[in-house]
């Protein structure tokens, strides 16, 4: 009987004491592990297929059954792919737009989130509900008239329609940052206020330094969104030299049909690399951020 309280506290220890239960739970873990392995393999197959195709000569692409490991690894496909479309030019364009969007999103959303998390105003809660409801607003409703606004401003075929809106805050990022700010103790603000710190001082000296993980999450989210964006650049960019990578890839497809699959997979691989690199280096921060927004939604 003396063991009962301790087994309560340590479920793993209790599993050891009760033989049949331990067997069942270890069998369960083994089965789960096997299924997770199978699932992971299924998730990875498309990536493997893409890489395998990208290093084959085009003739070998159309061999049945599929040759997973090509007879010879041919990296020159990558060089060809980047010449069939001016890939590096598009990469520079995409990088420029993405950097500007990331800066704008982080700056504006962190300011607005501070207002909603820390400052009292009579209309604050109403405004916050409006902010949340814009998350549900389908983009299609404003698509046409936003286009007309940019046309009226003379901004068609420039990067402004892709960059400027980021500087006005994004409801999703504001929500994410506000949730994070709320976890910071109010006593910090009060102490700074007593020391004569302004609201802006509190924001830059206390809130921002403590919010680095959340700010990083917003930076990463906006990086992915901007880098992968397709519909907006498709609508706003006409000159080929100004294309972004996704528009360039789509142009590749429409121009050359779907025949040079090895080149298309090479170009797709290159297009995915920046996002994958960012993800691998920042995944802990990023996944925590993704969880935060999903859970508190």
């Amino acid at each position, binding site marked *: 009987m003396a063991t009962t309280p301790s087994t309560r506290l340590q479920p793993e220890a209790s599993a050891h004491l009760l033989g049949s239960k331990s067997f069942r739970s270890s069998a369960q873990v083994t089965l789960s592990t096997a299924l997770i392995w199978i699932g992971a393999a299924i*998730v990875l197959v*498309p990536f493997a297929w893409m890489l395998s195709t990208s290093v084959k000569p085009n003739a070998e692409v159309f061999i049945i059954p599929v040759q997973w490991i090509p007879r010879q690894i041919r990296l020159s496909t990558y060089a060809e792919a980047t010449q069939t479309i001016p890939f590096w030019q598009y990469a520079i364009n995409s990088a420029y737009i993405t950097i500007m969007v990331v800066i704008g999103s982080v700056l504006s959303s962190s300011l607005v989130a501070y207002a909603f998390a820390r400052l009292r105003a009579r209309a604050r809660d109403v405004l916050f509900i409006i902010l949340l409801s814009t998350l549900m607003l389908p983009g299609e409703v404003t698509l046409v008239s936003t286009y007309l606004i940019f046309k009226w401003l003379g901004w068609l075929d420039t990067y402004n329609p892709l960059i400027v809106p980021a500087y006005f805050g994004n409801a999703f990022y504001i929500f994410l940052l506000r949730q994070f700010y709320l976890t910071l103790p109010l006593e910090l603000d009060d102490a700074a206020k007593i020391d004569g710190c302004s609201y802006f001082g509190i924001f830059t000296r206390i809130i921002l330094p403590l919010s680095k993980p959340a700010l990083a999450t917003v930076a990463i989210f906006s990086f992915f969104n901007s880098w992968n964006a397709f519909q907006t650049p498709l609508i706003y960019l006409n000159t080929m030299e100004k294309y972004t990578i*996704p528009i360039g890839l789509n142009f590749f497809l429409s121009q050359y049909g779907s025949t040079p699959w090895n080149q298309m997979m090479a170009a797709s691989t290159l297009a995915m690399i920046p996002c994958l690199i960012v993800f691998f280096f920042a995944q802990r921060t990023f996944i925590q951020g*993704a969880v935060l927004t*999903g859970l508190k939604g």
Partner: protein
Amino acid sequence: MATRANLRTVPFRGSLARREELAFYLFASPWLVGFVIWTVGPMIASFGLSFAHYDVITPPIFVGLQNYVQMLTGDDLVWRSLQVTLYYAVGAVPTGLIAALILALLMNQKVHGIAVFRTIYYMPAVIAGVPVALLWMWIFNPDFGVLNNFLAMIGIQGPKWLFSETWVIPSFILMSLWTIGAPMIIYLAGLQGIPQHLYEAAEIDGAGPWAKFTHVTIPMISPIIFFNAVMGVIGSFQIFTPAYVMTNGGPDNASLFIGLYLYNNAFKYFQMGYASALAWLVFLIILALSLVVIRSSPLWVYYEGGMGSGKL
């Protein structure tokens, strides 16, 4: 809730209060201005435009309800695209929710190397867009794609996938399952947040694994299921990139998602007025669907400490 404590809600008065209120509006000004320029303004404009013919070149002509009449009675493609979109939503949203939940339950079994698996499963979610669309076109290729090659190996003659009216939407649903890593991570965090004592209490009451799952796990994560369901439905109405890149709505409009049809009207046929009317139809449908889900949620969503306390 812990977060509640850090949100000041007490009423306050005086000149300090006015200063704080002013500061609120200054800090919130980027979004407030943006909300007027990029949301309120365009919504009013698109409402106005929905009663007009406008081809961008000649000035708009007021036509009353003509766009709406045309949309509801004279345009089969509207119904086609709504059918396509709903078919996709009904197929993809529940499948994705269930698959992601099962995966999260498996991952919650104290499996070794969970960080590695989390990374692998999440990877497809960070590379959305055109490269993914191209990759799946190649996977779905009926003659040389990996999917039909695999099916041939186990003796099944694979369908034409994207080239088949019957199979094109199932293809898109299959492709969407590749990205369940994102909701899976959220479920996993939710599962890990369920207090152990609830399971122990259930065990004492004689609950088996299934009873624990249906009476503890599901109620505790139902707000997350609810959130993912609503966002999934809204997302279906905004699908554009895969449809545009992979099939351009074909074959024979079998994958003409409403998002693509709207784009075509606006930027291919330059019928800005008609496209605006369509946008309002989409808006009303999403609003109605969201309201149904939200209204029905008290029946099946369990919020700890009463309805809505964890919401804001």
